[in-house]
C-alpha cells in the first residue's frame, strides 16, 4: 500500500494519464474580472511561484508552477479558489 501526498498524486496522474489535473481550481463566476476584485488580484500578488497570472483581465492558473501551498485559497476575498 502506497500513500501519496496530493501533489505526488497530481504528478503521477499527469505522467500516467497524460491529463492535467489542476492542483487548485478557480470558480470564474465568483472570481469575476480582476478589476472588480476587492483585493485587486491579491492571489496573483501573493503567489510567489507564478502559478497565478493575469490574462486579459482574468486570473489564470499555471498548474505546473503551483506548489499547493494554499495561500491563494486562504486569502481570496471572493472565496473563488478551492481544492479540486
Amino acid at each position: 500500500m502506497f500513500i501519496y501526498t496530493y501533489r505526488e498524486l497530481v504528478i503521477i496522474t499527469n505522467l500516467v494519464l497524460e491529463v492535467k489535473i489542476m492542483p487548485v481550481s478557480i470558480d470564474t463566476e465568483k472570481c469575476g474580472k480582476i478589476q472588480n476584485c476587492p483585493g485587486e488580484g491579491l492571489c496573483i500578488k501573493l503567489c510567489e511561484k507564478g502559478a497565478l497570472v493575469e490574462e486579459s483581465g482574468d486570473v489564470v492558473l499555471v498548474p505546473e508552477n503551483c506548489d499547493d501551498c494554499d495561500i491563494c485559497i486562504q486569502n481570496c476575498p471572493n472565496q473563488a479558489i478551492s481544492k479540486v
Partner: protein
Amino acid sequence: MSSIKRDGEETRSLKHTNDKCVGCGICTSICPTKSIKNGPILPIARGLVDMDYVNINKDSCCLCGLCAVACPFDSLEFKINEKNIKDLEEYPKWIKDAAIDSESCIYCKACETACPQDAIKVARTLPKRENLVIGEIDVDQDKCINCKICEELCPGDAIKVKSTGRNTYETVLDEDKCVYCLVCKRACPTDAIKAVCSSCAYQDYKFDEDAFKTKGDTILNPDSCINCGWCQEICPVDAATVIKPFEGDVTFDEEMECKGDSCHACKDVCPCNAIEIVDGKSTIDARVCILCGACSNVCPQKGIQINRTKMNLENIRSKSWNNILSGLTSGK
C-alpha cells in the same frame, strides 16, 4: 486605527493602533461579543493591502475592555473616564517586562542589531584613541633631514613632514592616529625619532580604566518592545532580562506538509523574527517566540500549534474574565 467611544454612567473608549498590532488573533478569540474580526493578515503583513489587522464592530462591542487587557502588544487601549485601565488597580496587569542593566552593559550594540522591533538604541562614547596607545613618539627636529621616509611608511598616516619655508620643515605627529608601532623610529636614517614607552617607564603599566572605557546609554523603548527576548539571548554579558507574556511552546503537526519557501507566511507575520525557513521547512526559535499565535493564524496548512501553559497576567479579579482568559492558556 479604529476607535469606539460611548457615554453612560462612565465614558468608555477603545482605541486600536494598527502600527502596534501584529494580527495575532488573541483579541478576536476572547471577545465575548465576537465583535472583533481579523483582516487579511498575510496580505497586510506583506504590504499588499492597506487595511487594519482587526476590525471592531462598533454596534456590538460592549466596551468591556477585555481585549485591551489581553493584547500582549498594547495595540488596544481602553479608557474609562479618560483613564487607561492599565493604570487602574481593579484591572489585570501584565508582568511581562524587558530591561537592560546599565551597570553591566558594554555597549556592544548586539541587542540593537538583533531587536526585531527597533526598540533599542545604544548611544555610546568611545575612549580617546590616544588613551589606549601605550607610548609616545617625539621628533628631534634638529636631527630630522626632511627625507619623509617616516611619512611614507607610517601605516596610520600619523606622521607628516611639512615644509614651513623655502628650506625649513617641521615634523608633525597626529597623536590621535599614532598607534606606537615604531615603524618610523626603526626606519629613520638619522635617529631623529624618540619613543617613550609608558609601560617601560612605569615598569608595570597601570591601566587607567576610566580613560579606556566605552561609556554610553542603552535605551529600551517600552512602547515598541514586544518582550521577545532577542536582547536577552544575544547579550554577551547578560545585561538584558526579559519576561515574556506567555510561557509554553510551539509545535508543528507531524502530518503537515510545510511548503517552506513557496509559502513562508508564518515568517512574514512573525513580529519576533523567530521563524526561519530551513531546508524548505519552517522552524521556530522558541527562545525568541512570544507565543502570540500570528503564525498559527496564517498557516494555510493549519499546521502550527501554540501551546501556552502560563499567561503572565496578574490581578484578574473577575471570575468570568479569568474563565475567558484561561482559554488562551489551555490550547488554542
